[in-house]
């Protein structure tokens, strides 16, 4: 190795070191610490009791009905909202890319939901659906006294709507990035060959956008699994709408049970790891194509 390449390596590492340290400081060390905490009985309300309890916290979590109910809620919200976002996001990306006029207006206004604080958006939707303050119940076809937050699946419907509104722009922008890389000549050629608009979409756009779609799905799926803000504001888990992140928060911060809460944290981390693993395993090579670093 020449001294020039060696000094280049050194420079590169010096440039990267601060960012790497900052990223590890609040992830690698805390998750290790969470594992340590999860093996102990630590409840800040009873500081004198405690000690090493092995896997007791994990068995307590995994045998509780609440954990499995929350897993169901989280996965249900994740799958439903990401599916809706993919369809809407694709439609919006196509409008942003192909509209014969007004692209600037669309691009700017689509960014508005992205810029609105999630908590604020959750309040806006909650006010809109609440029977007393809302306008939704005054719309035609909807019962005037519909109590949206009184039932489990009607609460889910409002939560999903708020999540979809807030995060579809992100999905649309990721899809747009994939859309602009497609060679326009392909569409012209297909048109000449008599392909309909729908055929052009399914035979050209979708296959060529596979990497972009998978990247967008992976990001949004993992993000949706962490859903916290919207549920916290709208129901705080009432009517069995609790997500796993809310469960972790309740144990850690509200009940100050660091041992049990950390076990929940570690399990959530493992779930995210599993989802990412399944994505990469299922679509590994294609994900790599869509990565800027690839």
């Amino acid at each position, binding site marked *: 190795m020449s001294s020039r390449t060696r000094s280049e390596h050194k420079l590169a590492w010096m440039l990267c070191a601060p960012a790497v340290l900052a990223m590890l400081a609040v992830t690698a060390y805390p998750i290790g610490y969470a594992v340590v905490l999860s093996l102990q009985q630590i409840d800040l309300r009873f500081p004198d009791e405690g000690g090493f309890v092995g896997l007791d916290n994990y068995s307590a979590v995994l045998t509780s009905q609440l954990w499995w109910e929350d897993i169901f809620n989280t996965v249900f919200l994740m799958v439903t909202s990401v599916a809706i976002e993919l369809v809407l996001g694709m439609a919006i990306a196509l409008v942003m890319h192909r*509209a014969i*006029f007004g692209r600037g207006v669309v691009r700017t206004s*689509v960014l508005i939901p992205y810029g609105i604080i999630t908590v604020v*958006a959750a309040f*806006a939707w909650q006010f809109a659906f609440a029977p007393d303050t809302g306008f939704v119940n*005054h719309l035609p076809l909807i019962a005037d006294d519909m109590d949206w937050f009184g039932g489990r699946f009607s609460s889910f419907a409002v939560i999903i709507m708020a999540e979809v509104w807030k995060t579809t722009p992100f999905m649309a922008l990721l899809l747009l990035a994939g859309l602009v890389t497609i060679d326009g000549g392909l569409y012209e050629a297909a048109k000449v060959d008599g392909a309909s608009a729908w055929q052009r979409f399914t035979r050209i756009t979708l296959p060529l956008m596979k990497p972009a779609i998978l990247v967008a799905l992976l990001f949004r799926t993992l993000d949706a699994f962490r859903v916290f803000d919207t549920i916290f504001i709208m129901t705080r888990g009432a009517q069995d709408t609790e997500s796993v992140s809310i469960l972790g*928060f309740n144990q850690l911060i509200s009940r100050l049970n660091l041992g049990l809460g950390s076990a929940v944290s570690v399990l959530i981390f493992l779930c*995210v790891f599993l989802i990412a693993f399944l994505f990469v395993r299922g679509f590994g090579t294609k994900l790599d194509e869509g990565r*800027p670093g690839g």
Partner: protein
Amino acid sequence: MGRGSRDYAYWSIAIAVVLIFALIPVVWLISVSLKPPEAVTDGRFIPSEVSFDNYKSLFEGGIDDSPFIKPLINSIVIALTTTVIAIVLASFAAYAIARLEFPGKRLILAGALAIAMFPPISTVGPLFDMWRALGLYDTYPGLIIPYLTFSLPLAIYVLVAFFREIPWDLEQAAQVDGATPFQAFTKVIVPLAAPGVFTAAILVFIFAWNDFLFAISLTSSDASRTVPAASPQPRWW
């Protein structure tokens, strides 16, 4: 109707639908904020009378008694500090990744991707405990540090993508034409890199501005509580 004007009509409808989708909740929020208290439950989408009392009460009492001013200052200072530090660190790293060959480059990119997917709730418990021991609980740095961690991956990815597209040879060309290295950097490279840096900065700022989980977990008072965490209490409280 000709084919051109039919296309025009279809796109008008598509654009209108997207605009309604994006803007309705925002218009609704503004509308509620302008309703006087007694009219909040009238269920009208457009207020029948407009009042700015809600805004006045947010700022009443100056910095000490207003429920809004201190959290607003906290939010602005914390989000701006995070943005500046994140952009400096991410620019260093992205420059190295985009321009230099070195072992561990893929590892850094893969690690950044992994952190972008990391569930924040998994670090809240340990951080809560660590910050209380270190005296960082309910302070600005106590929020800035986790925000840096979780916004750096996105900033690095955006900057690497932009830096790869910059024609770096222009820097040498400018020096051949008599520019000093400093001039070549500030007059040629900086203007080319500015849009990417600006994009990354907006994304980092929105991330820090938007966060709720760390803000309610790692603060306890107006000393460092940000706007999302200090918003009016939800109904179930």
